[in-house]
């Protein structure tokens, strides 16, 4: 059974600080996604990681993938309040790009 574990589940940061969210998954998967969700909203796609060693960056967020370790990280650099949201990682299973198993999410709160 494919499981996705995310940690931490809650993260309170000061503005300007750096931190990393971790996503471990239990079996081989074709791709790994990172999403952002604001309260009461749908999911916003942040990154899609397809291969071992993949690294993608957008603004203050950088995601990486180590398929051998079955680990992805989402690194936050110099956090700002606007980054406050819940971040989910998800992996595909069953050979389909749409069957996703989600982690429990990391609720990030960035305080001034």
């Amino acid at each position, binding site marked *: 059974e494919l499981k996705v574990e995310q940690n931490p589940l809650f993260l309170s940061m000061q503005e300007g600080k750096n931190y990393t969210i971790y996503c471990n998954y239990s079996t081989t998967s074709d*791709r790994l*996604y990172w*999403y952002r969700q604001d309260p*009461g*909203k*749908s*999911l916003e*796609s942040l990154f*899609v990681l*397809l291969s071992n060693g993949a690294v993608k960056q957008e603004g203050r967020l950088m995601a990486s993938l180590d398929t051998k370790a079955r680990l992805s990280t989402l690194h936050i650099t110099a956090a700002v309040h606007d980054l406050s949201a819940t971040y*989910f990682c*998800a992996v*595909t299973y069953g050979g*389909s*790009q*749409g*069957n*996703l*198993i*989600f*982690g*429990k*999410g990391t609720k990030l709160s960035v305080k001034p």
Partner: protein
Amino acid sequence: SAVISQKPSRDICQRGTSLTIQCQVDSQVTMMFWYRQQPGQSLTLIATANQGSEATYESGFVIDKFPISRPNLTFSTLTVSNMSPEDSSIYLCSTNARGFGEAFFGQGTRLTVV
């Protein structure tokens, strides 16, 4: 990217009734997916809907409770039947638009059952 329109965006329903949620994609897609997000929780896949065939349900979800239609390559509906307060959740449709390598989500339907 694929644009997914979902409606209604929210509803408050009486227990024992049913609600049908519609999902429209701006391009033809092979597979559409329905997810449930219970309050404060992560997303769980309910079923996969292919055009022209019966939906495939995940463990813990059954067709009698969550019937799904997929009449063409751009549209799907999910019905939540005989609702109880435990069905109060956000329901989201998703697709993996061909060629984009991503899974896109509709804006979700926030259902409250009273």
